[in-house]
């Protein structure tokens, strides 16, 4: 994939594989293509070239309905999470449940899931009035609410401020139920020490495996 500013390739034969239940990080400087990679893996954008295999499914061979089913296994949060601005935090958090056809008692489930968390006081606030860190918090919680097999977070965890510890706890809980978690950021997040077992550096269009950073053995191969 050529760089938009003509500086060589943005992504060049990028291929990686993460085993289920692994917490991984992909790091690299600003503008190196992390968010592009995130948008491809999170099934927001598709490359006309290359092959994308997510959760064992080759996207080239899937029709719209199959992609929709695959998306139900993925929870993602971008650097600036897209929220429905005029709707409340509770309504935004309910969207993944609604999309997955789990509509019965949806608001009760949302309220129950955020009980005694920093999100609880924000439930009635329209999304358009959230501060950046609150917005990120809501975005990450929304990615986790349906307990997906694959959790993708772009923008690291540093900008979460006071909510960082709470989010790491939530990611730990997801990790305990064997979810695969990939965090895209500029630098390795220290708050994920002890959780993260695989990491890559993206630079000059190439992914370079960093040495093992955690206690778990991770297998790194594959395609993206």
């Amino acid at each position, binding site marked *: *994939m*050529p760089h*938009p500013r003509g500086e060589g390739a*943005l992504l060049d034969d990028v291929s990686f594989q993460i085993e289920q239940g692994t917490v991984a990080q992909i790091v690299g400087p600003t503008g190196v293509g992390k968010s*592009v990679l995130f*948008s*491809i893996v*999170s*099934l*927001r*954008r*598709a*490359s*006309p070239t290359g092959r994308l295999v997510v959760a064992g499914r080759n996207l080239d061979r899937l029709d*719209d*309905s199959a*992609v*929709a*089913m*695959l*998306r*139900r296994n*993925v*929870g*993602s949060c971008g650097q600036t999470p*897209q*929220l*429905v*601005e005029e*709707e409340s935090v509770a*309504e*935004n958090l*309910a*969207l*993944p449940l*609604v*999309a*997955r*056809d789990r*509509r019965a008692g*949806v*608001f009760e489930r949302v309220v129950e899931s955020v009980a005694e968390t920093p999100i609880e006081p924000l439930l009635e606030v329209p999304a358009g009035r959230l501060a950046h860190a609150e917005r990120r918090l809501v975005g990450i919680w929304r990615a986790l609410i*349906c307990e997906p097999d694959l959790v993708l977070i772009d923008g690291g965890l540093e900008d979460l401020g006071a909510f960082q510890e709470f989010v790491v706890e939530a990611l730990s809980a997801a990790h305990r139920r064997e979810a695969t978690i990939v965090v895209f950021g500029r630098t390795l997040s220290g708050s994920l020490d002890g959780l993260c077992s695989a990491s890559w550096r993206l630079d000059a269009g190439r992914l370079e495996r960093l040495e093992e950073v955690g206690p778990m053995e991770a297998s790194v191969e594959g395609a993206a």
Partner: protein
Amino acid sequence: MALQRSLRTVFREGRSETVTAAGVLVFALLVPTTMALVASMTIEVASGYLDAHRPVVYLEATEEGERAKALAEEIESWRAVSRARVRTPARARADLSERLGEEEMARLGVDDSMLPYSVIVEPAVPVLGHLDMVAETSALEVRSEVDTVDVPSGRAVEALSFARWVLLFGALVAFGAVAMGISHLRHYLVRLAESEEERRRLLTLFGAPPEAVARAALRRGLATGAVAGGVATVALAVLLALWYGAHPDLVGAEFRGSTAIWLTLLAPLGVGPLIGLVAGWLANRTIRRTEVDELELRDMLG
């Protein structure tokens, strides 16, 4: 919480837009149905007029029935003609007797031998095909076996010509009105979808089935069409009642038993939702566009 906002919420939030879209659709439904109503009330008068102005080809008195039959078969092969009927002298006498009365016939001393075989020509398409048929039939007068051709007078041809243009213009207006209704409703549904773009993209991202997302425009189109159809039916019924009150002779007392009038009155109830579905389908085609960004990546949530 539903996949899409409820119809009540959507319509309440964009009340003026919804009312305008439904109003345009009511108008679009009223134009052709009012025309059909007028047509069904005047069809008998029009048919009588057309029957009276069918061309008749009179053969020479010396010609036999076989010649008349051959001529009728030839005329029937013309594209503008649906049927060419041979009228025997006996039948011609009976028709004349019906019009003049036996007493007058006896006074005039008319008998079968005085009346030739004739061919009565009927058009393939009433009114619209009448003029073409008249022109073709007139040319038969030069034939040796033909004595005379009775075609409508100049004024009748003018009237038919005018009626033809009125019908064509009416059909054009009716088509235009329906097309306008569909187009306006499609725009309304697309605007609604655009106002919910963020929500739609997020639902898609979280795995909502594509057909469920597309169903919103169809459901809203169907609902708007059904409401517009109901209003148009009521408006037509009121219009008919007002006409009957003002001109009972024009409408005719037997209109309550007319299948054509009842079908026309009830047509918007079926056509309205159908137009709504078509508009919803067209809106979905506009909404579900695939965009490619500057990196040539395809937007999978579009």
